[in-house]
């Protein structure tokens, strides 16, 4: 069975500083990895995905993520955080891309002005 771990409950970062949200995964087979963001009272918005190829994936709103197979990690990064990036971030994995996403518990990101 696949699973995702997001070890931190909340990530606090000052506006303009780099933002990192950590994710490790466990899956049998090749992983399809995703990051989603959720704003209050909203559904999930897709940020980026890793299927195959370059380990550094670029996504929406200036976010990127680095796939590390040896460490089974897929950390989300943004070079310079904005106050508007404050939201709940979810990492998800599905084996073979079968659309049965397994989500982590989420990380609340708070960007301090």
């Amino acid at each position, binding site marked *: 069975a696949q699973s995702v771990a997001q070890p931190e409950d909340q990530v606090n970062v000052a506006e303009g500083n780099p933002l990192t949200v950590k994710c490790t995964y466990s899956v049998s087979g090749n992983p399809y990895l995703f990051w989603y963001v959720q704003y209050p009272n909203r*559904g*999930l918005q897709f940020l980026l995905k890793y299927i195959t190829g370059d380990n550094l994936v670029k996504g929406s709103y200036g976010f990127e993520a680095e796939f590390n197979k040896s460490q089974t990690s897929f950390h989300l990064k943004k070079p310079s955080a904005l106050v508007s990036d404050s939201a709940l971030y979810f990492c998800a994995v599905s084996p073979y*891309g*079968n*659309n049965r*996403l*397994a989500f982590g*518990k989420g990380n609340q990101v708070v960007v301090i002005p």
Partner: protein
Amino acid sequence: DAGVTQSPTHLIKTRGQHVTLRCSPISGHKSVSWYQQVLGQGPQFIFQYYEKEERGRGNFPDRFSARQFPNYSSELNVNALLLGDSALYLCASSYKNSGSLYNEQFFGPGTRLTVL
């Protein structure tokens, strides 16, 4: 283009009742998945439908059922509601069900179900 739409937005039921939630996928998307998001947790996979057939089921009791219609819209039904069924129910659509580079799922805003 319209995104994934869900109805109703909010719903209040009492224990033992039945509920039906509805989802319309993005035009051209043939796969619909349902997730349950309990407060403070990540979404949990309930069902996946593709071309009107169930293609996957998560670890949920038989009280939960779903179906997909010829126009690819979908319904999630929950019988004999329990307090623990209170959650945000999310519907997601994608172009294909698997094996595609374009299989990211697009989520609707969800239906907030409260069971009293």
